[in-house]
Each structure stands twice: as structure tokens, then as C-alpha cells.
């Protein structure tokens, strides 16, 4: 692999020359930016670095995560590390996994015009419009499953002409689905109860009191599932 060639990029309209194999985030740092906003896990999980850009050969607005995409020649971009959104507060026990719950907290979901701009604006390639359509139908399971890879970067909401906050609808649906629709794990209940009632205390105390040799003996001879 040779030395990367230098290309021009435009950070908020201002030209910088950077190596062509950097990510957008690295290119900002290379250009002298000390990031406080717009930088988080640097691994594509946290949603801090949503970025909007255009390239000269295309009229379309493109999106990506600054930590996950490589710079392109003559691209111009701005990070959108924050976008105003109203998160509704709720008591999860007082809501069911159904349409009335979604409508009570986010009545604006019915304003969706089906333009698909949210989907085009999702750096995770989630079918955002489709899960919003599922939300309007009250199909909570579909919303939960389709939105699962959401990193809550907020780019969908930033571009929505109907002024929806899709990612808050999505997390509400996921939590309601997981809490009220998916069956509880009975083995979890059983084991927690056993521990709470102190039924394992004697056995664990015995092991906690063991010296290294005794533990080593147990460890080296343990059976592996």
C-alpha cells in the first residue's frame, strides 16, 4: 500500500487538503479540528457524528457517519451532532404495546406523508419510512424489529417534512414490545428467586472461602458445555 494521494474537501464550505484514505472524522482532525461535539465511539455505534454531504457530480444530499466513511474528492460536508427533538416521558408500566400508546405519546406519527426522505437519510440503512408506516398501523413488533439497528443519530428527524421524531417512536416501540409482548424468561425468574431466598448462599460462601489451589483444581477440572 503506497502513500495516499491528497485531495480537497470542504468542511462547512472551507477548503482543506487531506489524504484520500482518511475517514471524514480523521480528515477533520487532520485539518486541525479538536472535536468535542460530533465525535463519540469512533466505531459506528453511538450516533454522535451524523454528517450530511454533497459531491460535485450529484445533486442529491448524502448522509453518513463521520467515523465510518472515507472522504471523497471535492465533497462538502457539515456534521449534525444534535437536532432538536421532544422526547416524551412515560411510565413503561402504564402503556401497552399498541397503537393508542404510540398515538398518545407521539400523535404526529399520523402526519407522515410517506416521502421516504428519512430512509434515504439513515446512515444505518434502516427502512425508516416502512417502520413509521408499521407504527401507524399499530404493528409494534414490526417497528421494534425493523428499527433495531438504530443508533439514534437523529438524521431522520432532521430531514422530515412532517416533523416526526422517528427514533423516539422507535425506541418506545422496542421497549414496549420487549416488555409487554415478548414472554418473560422463566429461567431468569427461577434463578433470581433461588438467589434472593438465600438458597445458594452456603455453596457460594464455600467457594468464596477457597484458597488458590482449591480454586485452581476446580477450574482446571471443570466440564465445559
Amino acid at each position: 500500500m503506497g502513500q495516499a494521494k491528497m485531495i480537497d474537501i470542504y468542511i462547512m464550505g472551507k477548503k482543506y487538503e487531506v489524504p484520500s484514505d482518511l475517514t471524514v472524522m480523521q480528515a477533520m482532525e487532520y485539518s486541525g479540528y479538536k472535536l468535542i461535539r460530533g465525535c463519540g465511539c469512533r466505531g459506528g455505534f453511538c450516533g454522535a457524528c451524523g454528517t450530511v454531504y454533497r459531491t460535485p457530480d450529484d445533486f442529491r444530499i448524502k448522509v453518513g457517519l463521520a467515523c465510518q466513511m472515507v472522504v471523497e474528492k471535492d465533497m462538502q460536508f457539515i456534521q449534525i451532532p444534535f437536532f432538536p427533538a421532544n422526547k416524551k416521558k412515560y411510565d413503561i408500566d402504564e402503556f401497552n404495546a399498541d397503537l393508542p400508546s404510540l398515538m398518545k405519546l407521539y400523535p404526529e406519527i399520523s402526519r407522515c406523508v410517506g416521502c421516504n426522505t428519512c430512509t434515504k437519510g439513515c446512515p444505518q440503512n434502516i427502512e425508516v419510512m416502512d417502520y413509521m408506516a408499521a407504527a401507524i398501523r399499530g404493528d409494534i413488533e414490526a417497528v421494534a424489529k425493523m428499527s433495531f439497528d438504530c443508533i439514534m443519530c437523529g438524521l431522520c428527524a432532521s430531514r422530515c417534512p412532517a416533523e416526526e421524531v422517528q427514533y423516539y417512536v422507535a425506541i418506545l416501540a422496542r421497549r414496549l414490545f420487549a416488555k409487554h409482548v415478548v414472554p418473560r424468561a422463566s429461567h431468569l425468574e427461577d434463578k433470581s428467586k433461588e438467589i434472593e431466598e438465600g438458597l445458594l448462599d452456603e455453596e457460594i460462601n464455600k467457594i468464596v472461602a477457597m484458597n488458590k489451589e482449591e480454586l485452581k483444581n476446580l477450574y482446571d477440572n471443570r466440564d465445559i458445555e
Partner: protein
Amino acid sequence: MYDSMMLESIKEVEKTRTKRLNEEFARLTADEKLELLHNFHPDFRDDTQREVKIGANKGEKIPHEIADLLESKSLLNPKSFDIINAEHDVDVLIIGAGGAGSAAALVAKESGAKVLMVTKLRHGDSNTVMAQGGIQAADKTNDSPMTHYIDVVGGGGYTNIPELARALTMDAPSVIKWLESLGCMFSKDEDGTMQTIHGGGTSRKRMHFASDYTGAEIMRTLRDEVQNKEIETIEFCSAVELLLDEDGKCGGAVLYNMETKEYFIARAKTVIIATGGSGRLHLAGFPTSNHYGATADGIVMAYRAGAKLAFLDANQVHPTGVVYPKQMIGQLVTEKVRGIGAQLVNTKGEQFIHPLETRDVVSSAVIRECEHRQNGYEVEERQYAVWLDSPMIDLIHGKGTVKRELPAMFKQYERYDIDMSKHPILIFPTLHYQNGGILIKENGETEIENLFVAGEVAGGIHGRNRLMGNSLLDILVFGRRAGKAAADKSKNSDVKILSLKHVERFHKQLEEAGIESERTSPMLLPKYHK
């Protein structure tokens, strides 16, 4: 996209794949493991550590990069800094808003405390959000906290503090139950049974997961709940020093607005440090899988206040960090990839270690394969890697498994035109986890009264080596314990007049030890800009 030389090397891996499907590499004996670690693990290299000259751990070996921060001056001038006017006066101040901080906040609030949580980046910015693999808990019928305990201490080289390992394993099922009750979307069977798999060093399949977004799912659920409970959270606000009274009791912190650069004061009856790890210090020059904010701030503040540190000389390099494409360098390839069948293979197409040995052992084996046996692939000059044979997963579990079970990972590689279900991936160890930290007791207390610690910044739970899936567990177990204990303590905590006298004394010790550096700490953010 792989170049032609890489594709040639992949052919060697493909040639042996069918044969390897039925080949289980022998696990190492205890002695073989020790020998491997001593010869190849960075913890045992002479040039990575030094004796720290001052403080509660004076004379003990600590990695240079951490020792540099400990042997630094405060960002504040303790003699002239005004701490009279407190902008905040709360029961419990929580520094850090990742998984541990958020869990602590929820439980402290539930226990009736007025809580303030501050974080130097956004709420949820943490290593928690990046943890893909899973969370351990012994809650199936063939498993028990005792079995889990033995795995934990065996993996930790019998150095774990027993009471902490006990708390970790005994609280585990109730932590998962708590998450389930919060609507955390674990991967489950139709009847609600948790899907569980192996992780490195586990003797039972007890790794619970939420696809490969386990940490992200836990974090976004906790954050949503913290917001629902209207717990005051200040973002882009770090702490830079603790405040102590004349008896040495902790009673708040000096906070710093990352954006306006202003300092201000929060008084608190109890304080919980939950600032996370230190991967961004790039110990021994390793790339890291850690979050941007993992700069050991909590360790620095607590050390100045007199806290004792433990096992900071033990740092985990995760065996499978991305080496190619270079834009992803250091990022983690979750252990789940090995958990569901991918083997580690050298350039000759041979296995050289059982893929599910503990992380320290597998990392050492990869380093040996590359640096000693010269069976690594040279990605760039002196940057070697071995192959992680991810296509095996679809062969074992059926087509589409990689995409379904590892969507985050698959997506990341896909961005660079690499289909990890068809082609293996190049990996080398990456700095992943601070095994040690501030020494705690089982409810998160420290030797400093009113000061509690939870999460990666704490030390003693995992001894010298943590197993996969025990970190997501640890932050919740000890986050919850610290939240409860700090809230309870705040009800009868009496703190006298606060000061930065301990920082003054620390500066004096620096002077007496002949440390004349102009270094300041905490670091707050790494310097990556030009």
C-alpha cells in the same frame, strides 16, 4: 476491498477450511498458558511500565501513560481556586453517564436521592455503547453463580477480590431480570428463553445478547429510562477534581463545561465516579477499541484524593481488533464471531490456538504467530495480522447467519466492500479494557468516605483479566450497588467545609519527588488534531 495479495492469502485459508470444520484445536494446559503470557503479553514487557513515584500506590508498577497522568499537576490552582459558591447542591453526584453511571442514577433516584449526573460528552457516550458481544449471567438450569464464579476467578488468574467476584456472579441473574423489566430487547426464543452462547473462558453458554448491539441496546434503554425519570443530567460537563473536607470526606467536585470552558462547583453528600476506562491513552502504542472519552479521568481525580488503585498494570488487549481496512483500525471484532464458530488461522491456513481460550491467552498467541513465528500477513510495513475465518459461521449454522447474528459487524465491513460472510478478515490485538482501577468494596465504596466507584474505572472485580461479557455485567452490578449505597449514605452524611487542600498536598508531593513536568491532568480528551 481486498487487494490481489490478500485474495491470494485468503486462498490458503479456504484450502483448509473444510478440514478445519471438524478440527478442534487442543486447549492449552495451565503451564502452557503461563509460558505464552509471560513471553508475549504486553503486560509482561519491561518497557511498558514504571514505578509510580507518589501517592497511595507509590513504588508499584503502572503503565507509563497512566503514570504520566498520575504524576501531573491539577488543571486548577488549588491555592487560588474559589470553591465558595456551589451552583449545584445534591444528594448524589455521579460523574460519568455510561452504563454504570446511568444504572447508579436510576437506583439512587429510586432510593429517594436527589441525583445530578454529569458527563464530558453526551449521555451514553461510553464503552458500554460499543460492547457488542454480550452479558454473562448464570441463569440457566445447567448453570449456577458458583460455576460462573469459578470461570471468573480462573480467567482472572486467581487474583480477583473474592467478595467482588461473588457480588458480580450472584447479582447477575437479577441484573438481567431488571433489564428485561425495562424492556431491553434481548435475543430470545419464542417462549421467552434467553438465547445464550459461549464466550472466551466460559464453561457454560451464559452469554446473553441483543443481536450484536448488546451494549448499545442496554445503553439506549437505560438512557431512555433516566430521561423518563427526569434525572438531572448535564452533558459536555466533566469533573476535574474532587472536593474533600478537613476529615478527608468527599463532598462534591469541581466541574468543567467542555464548551464554554468555565469551571463550577457541585456540592454533594456522596459522589460516584463512573468515568470508564483508559484505552485512549494507547498504552504501549496499541490501537484501541475504546470510546473517544476513555482517558482515565476518574483514576486521576481519585488518586489525588488519596484512593488506592489496584491491578492497573494489567490491561486487556482484545485478540481481534481490525487491522484492515485501515479506516477501522483498532475497532473490535466481537468475540461472538469466535463464539459462533470462526477460527483464527495463520497465513499457512493453520489454526494456532483454540479460538475460545481467554482473551489474554488468545492475544498472546496472535502476537506470537505474527512476531515470533512470522506466520502473519503483512498488511503494512511491520503491521502484521492473522485471519479470522468468519465464513465458517455460515457453513456451520447456515447461510445468512453472519448477516443475521452480526449485523453491526457485517454492515461495517460492507461499507468497505468486504463481505465477511464470504471472506475472512484480518485481525491483530487491540487495547480494549482496563482490568484494574480504583479499589472498591462490594458496594462500590472506596477508602475515601462518601466516595463510591463503579464500572470500568473500578478495580478488583476481574483481577488481572476480565472475561468477555463480564464488563456489561460489572457496570450494572456495581452501578446499581453504588447507586443504592451512595443514596443510603447521603441520608446521614455530614460533610464539613470543602477544599482543594488535598490537591495542594499532592502538588507538594510532586515537587518533593522531583517531578518537574508541566503536564496537567485529567486529560479529558485525547489529542488527535493537528
